């Protein structure tokens, strides 16, 4: 116990530094992934079918839909590409994505674009996290948007509103209300996922805690700092949970 009290100031200072990295990665991921996810969700819902006219012509000629004509009318390249990207990023481990994004440029192109220092590692982590989480968010957004009854959009159309007005003035808030609970889950997961960035040696809080096991700043073989990082995570997720609860209450004035 006495030993722990002696070690505490050094350990906590170190954990605070690590926690700052964790917090930074969390915030930057949210700032990047929340809007990017929306763009991706629009991409996956895109119904732009540049070859549809071929299919329609075939149908007109044949008088009925064939497999080929259906392929042309249903071929939406943007949606398809976006869906493949989402599949790849949701279908592979984030840890693998971190390794590839950080090491690939140096290994294959001979040009380590991220640089080797802590800031380069942070940047690469942020890029990996933003893309990965944007893909997850996009699916939640899509569910949220498609969950808003079609009648809402039609009511807006009949009132002469533009597509943009309908989205921002009618659909958006209802979607937000729908997605708060699943997004809350993702945010809590993100808090803990930040620890994956240690695979490319981003010195987040678990790295900082583990350093005292291996030996750092005169303290070695100390297990309690590693376990103590759990307290940081609990406080962090606690605050996130409170914020989400607050947001949910804020939106409880209407029923969607």
């Amino acid at each position, binding site marked *: 116990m006495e*030993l722990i009290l002696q070690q505490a100031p050094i350990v906590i200072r170190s954990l605070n530094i690590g926690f700052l990295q964790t917090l930074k990665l969390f915030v930057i991921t949210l700032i990047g992934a929340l809007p990017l996810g929306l763009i991706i969700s629009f991409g996956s819902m895109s119904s732009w079918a540049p070859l549809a006219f071929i299919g329609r012509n075939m149908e007109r000629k044949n008088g009925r839909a064939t*497999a080929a004509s259906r*392929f042309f009318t249903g071929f939406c390249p943007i949606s*398809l590409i976006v869906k*493949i990207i989402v599949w790849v990023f949701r279908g592979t481990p984030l840890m693998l994505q971190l*390794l590839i994004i*950080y*090491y*690939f*440029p*140096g*290994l*294959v*192109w*001979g*040009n*380590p674009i*991220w*640089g*080797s*220092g*802590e800031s*380069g590692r942070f940047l690469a982590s942020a890029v990996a996290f933003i893309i990965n989480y944007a893909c997850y968010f996009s699916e939640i957004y899509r569910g949220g948007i498609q969950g808003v009854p079609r009648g809402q959009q039609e009511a807006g159309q009949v009132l002469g509103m533009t597509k943009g007005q309908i989205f921002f003035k009618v659909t958006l808030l209802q979607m937000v209300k729908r997605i708060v609970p699943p997004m809350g889950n993702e945010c809590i997961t993100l808090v803990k996922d930040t620890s994956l960035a*240690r*695979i*490319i*040696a981003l*010195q987040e809080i678990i790295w900082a805690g*583990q*350093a*005292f*096991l*291996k*030996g*750092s*700043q*005169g*303290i*070695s*073989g*100390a*297990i*309690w700092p590693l376990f103590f990082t759990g307290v940081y995570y609990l406080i962090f997720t606690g605050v996130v949970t409170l914020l989400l609860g607050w947001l949910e209450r804020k939106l409880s004035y209407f029923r969607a």
Partner: protein
Amino acid sequence: MKKLTKILALVLALALCVALCACSSGGSGTPASTGSSLDEYKDKDGNLPTEAPEGTEAPEGTETPEVVETAEATDSQYVKDKGVLIVGITDFAPMDYKDENGEWIGFDADMAKAFAAHLGVNVEFVEIDWDNKVLELDGKTIDCVWNGMTLREEVLNSMECSKPYCNNAQVVIVPVDVADQYQTADSIKDLAFAVEAGSAGEDMAVDYELNYTPVKSQADAIMEVASKTSDAAIIDSLMAAAMVGEGTGYENLTYTVGLNSEEYGVGFRKGSDLADMLDQFFAASYSDGTMIECAETYGVQAALIAQ
């Protein structure tokens, strides 16, 4: 079903495109003096002499971008051009660790600083995940691994290594209360061991035909013993001295039998000329006494190997 095949074909095509892009950009070579590490790996699989090899033309020093394609710049030239030697380390006293000001010190750190000064470049220390040290080297995010690295066969195969400069041993970690039963190599045969995967400790466990579980790090191996999930662990003696015994978090653990002696070296990219340059630098600093002086500062003079 038809749709599925189409999608599959498209995915494969995309993957192919990505691969082709990657290859072509790798092959055409980036400007400046880099040259892909993979090319180096393929082209010259032996040691590179410090001076320009027989075939290469003189203009290496002039560093006109056009000649890069034919005559590859040496690794030392690459480091000198960017003006900084990036040293991959972990927090590992007494070799590499931070002082109160957050400055990296230690026997390895101080020697790395001196070597960088000798090359006329700055030095930068970067903490890495030990598992990824070869990735970091080949991906050029670091220029060398200089962190009390045991010269194991795997290390020698994947890196261009300096001559050994320090002795080390693998020791057995056991709880203090049973330590006197396990003082010989024969007495440990029946114990369940934890060893770091891919470490010199694992090599020992294999050599001695021990029953072991590979874990992620030496620290994890110790934790296994402390939590009684394993009977014993095998780790570096330098690390054992720092991690177990009085004044550490593992007061009820100790180390007993030493299984072998082994040696530390510095690792560079495969084919790098820096390994030879370091050997020469070590020899010079050993003979003028600065290396011994540095070793004494960190209490590792007994382990130092004459250069």
